[in-house]
């Protein structure tokens, strides 16, 4: 492997008695779309801020392209950030906002203009340069923030929940666009989010954060199909955990196992149980089923069949053996 774009080693950060980041070792490759996924307070944003240089680690090092930058100020690092609140300068026009980084670096005026307008075009905001940020919608501001960061051609772009403030439709649209832009410019994206869908759809690799540590790193598929811990299984998608006696009775094995809701079918035979709740959700219906063996399973069924099971009905659940995930099995070491 070539020199990683970002290498974190033994990274820790405490705020007073609270340890927000409790030892992170991570390498992110050049040109990767890397997501840091986790609930709020899991330390993902703090890690991002340490890469950007806004927080100084309590211990450990941050290296960018092999160069130790732990002690360097944000303005000495070749990274740019898209902030959660966009942090556009309210007194400057959109074009001046985008130009800011180039102006600071004393890029000649003519080139500056050209690059800023090009950047605005790449985020599909041509001709908006004269406006003030306050005269733009949330989605447009988000793109301006993106253009302002990209125009500097950083080696790494850090994105701190940039889609959090957008409504669902716009968010889905921006997910696709972000991915496209990342492919076009070919730089490393580090994307912080608490939204598992977002992380799974966009990323090459995902790191799942739990209480200041990384619970698992892998491709979206690995993380979803082979969660390393019950936490990962629960946070990335809905997990149906079978452990202890339930695992023993139903699977005949010892350990902790998970079956994804969409992999389970209501059938004539299989593990018996009672429907506890029916949740209709447009394209799919979710059933909560209490198994007799003592576990609650979520079953997701596409709304194709005409008949429907009701609350209190006795049902049987089946799934294919290959869809049973043994938690931690692939990461036994």
């Amino acid at each position, binding site marked *: 492997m070539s020199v990683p774009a970002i290498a974190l080693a033994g990274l820790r950060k405490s705020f007073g008695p609270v340890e927000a980041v409790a030892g992170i070792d991570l390498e992110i490759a050049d040109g990767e779309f890397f997501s840091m996924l986790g609930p709020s307070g899991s330390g993902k944003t703090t890690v991002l801020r340490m890469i950007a240089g806004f927080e100084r680690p309590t211990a450990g090092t941050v290296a960018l392209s092999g160069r130790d930058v732990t002690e360097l100020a944000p303005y000495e690092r070749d990274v740019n*950030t898209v*902030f959660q609140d966009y942090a556009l*300068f309210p007194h400057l026009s959109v074009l001046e906002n985008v130009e800011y980084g180039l102006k600071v670096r004393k890029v000649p005026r003519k080139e500056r203009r050209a690059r800023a307008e090009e950047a605005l075009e790449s985020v599909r905001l041509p001709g908006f340069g004269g406006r003030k940020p306050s005269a733009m919608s949330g989605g447009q501001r988000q793109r301006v923030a993106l253009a302002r960061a990209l125009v500097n051609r950083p080696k790494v772009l850090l994105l701190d929940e940039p889609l959090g403030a957008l409504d669902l439709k716009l968010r889905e649209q921006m997910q696709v666009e972000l991915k496209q832009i990342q492919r076009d410019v070919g730089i490393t994206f580090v994307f912080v989010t608490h939204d598992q869908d977002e992380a799974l759809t966009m990323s090459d690799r995902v790191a799942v954060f739990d209480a200041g540590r990384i619970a698992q790193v892998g491709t979206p598929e690995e993380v979803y199909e082979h969660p390393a811990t019950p936490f990962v299984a629960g946070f990335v998608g809905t997990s149906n955990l079978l452990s202890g006696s339930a695992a023993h009775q139903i699977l005949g094995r010892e350990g902790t196992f998970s079956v994804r809701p969409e992999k389970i079918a209501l059938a004539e035979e299989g593990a018996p149980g009672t429907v506890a709740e029916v949740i209709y959700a447009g394209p799919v219906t979710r059933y909560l089923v209490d198994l007799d063996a003592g576990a609650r399973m979520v079953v997701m069924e596409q709304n194709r069949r005409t008949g429907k099971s009701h609350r209190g009905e006795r049902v049987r659940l089946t799934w294919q053996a290959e869809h049973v995930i043994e938690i931690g099995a692939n990461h036994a070491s």
Partner: protein
Amino acid sequence: MDNDQGLGRRRWQLAALLSAPMLWLGVAYLGALAVLLVSAFWTVNGFTGEVVREFSLQNFRTIVTEEVYRNVTLRSLGVAVAVTAICVVLALPMAFYMAKVASPRTRHWLVIAILTPLWASYLVKAYAWRVLLANDGPLDSLIGTPGYGLFAVVIVLSYLWLPYMILPIYAGLERLPDSLLEASADLGARGGRTFRGVVLPILVPSIFAGSIFTFSLSLGDYITVQIVGGKSQLIGNLVYANVGAANNLPFAAAIACVPVLIMVVYLTAVRRSGALEEL
């Protein structure tokens, strides 16, 4: 019909609610200003000392033509500008430390420390400085005193009005999100550059808001000048002298119109910066 009645009643209620403040504004503020303006065009009979209530431009002619009044006006303007500039220079780092560096606990105490002097009597503070600045006073034995005079006036007025500059700047900085400072650093700007490029431009309205206080309070002051100003006189002293010793109220009113006029010009200029929304 029913609706009309309801509307009429609501109008009455609104009128009743607003009548007291409107009366106050009309009589106390605008009324007093109107009296000032009208009486500025009267004169005083030189022999009897009685006010002659006839329209005359005599007072204003005197103010414009006689050199002493022009000098005093320019001197007062200079003092007000100097005091405002000193307050801005002192207030910016103090307010920045309070709003962006200090811990919430320290910030709390600093705000109290800024506000407490405002509770002390103006006279007491001015006299305290008279003692400080005296020959053989505490300052003299330490670093030497400039003595009483214009310079002392500028120092004492800067001290007196500094809180009025710190507070609006502090409020402006509190509203400035930290992420803007981080974004600037992220885009390659060092501290000084961020200050000039982001903080200062965003604070301009706050600085103007503070300057309205420091400028107008300095322009109208005459007590500090009497206490530490030595022989120098400002506009306020002329007004005071004409009200008291000279017993020429119309002329005092005419002189008082000068700072009012200056403030109107200043406020009109400031209004264009959006600073009035900061008050």
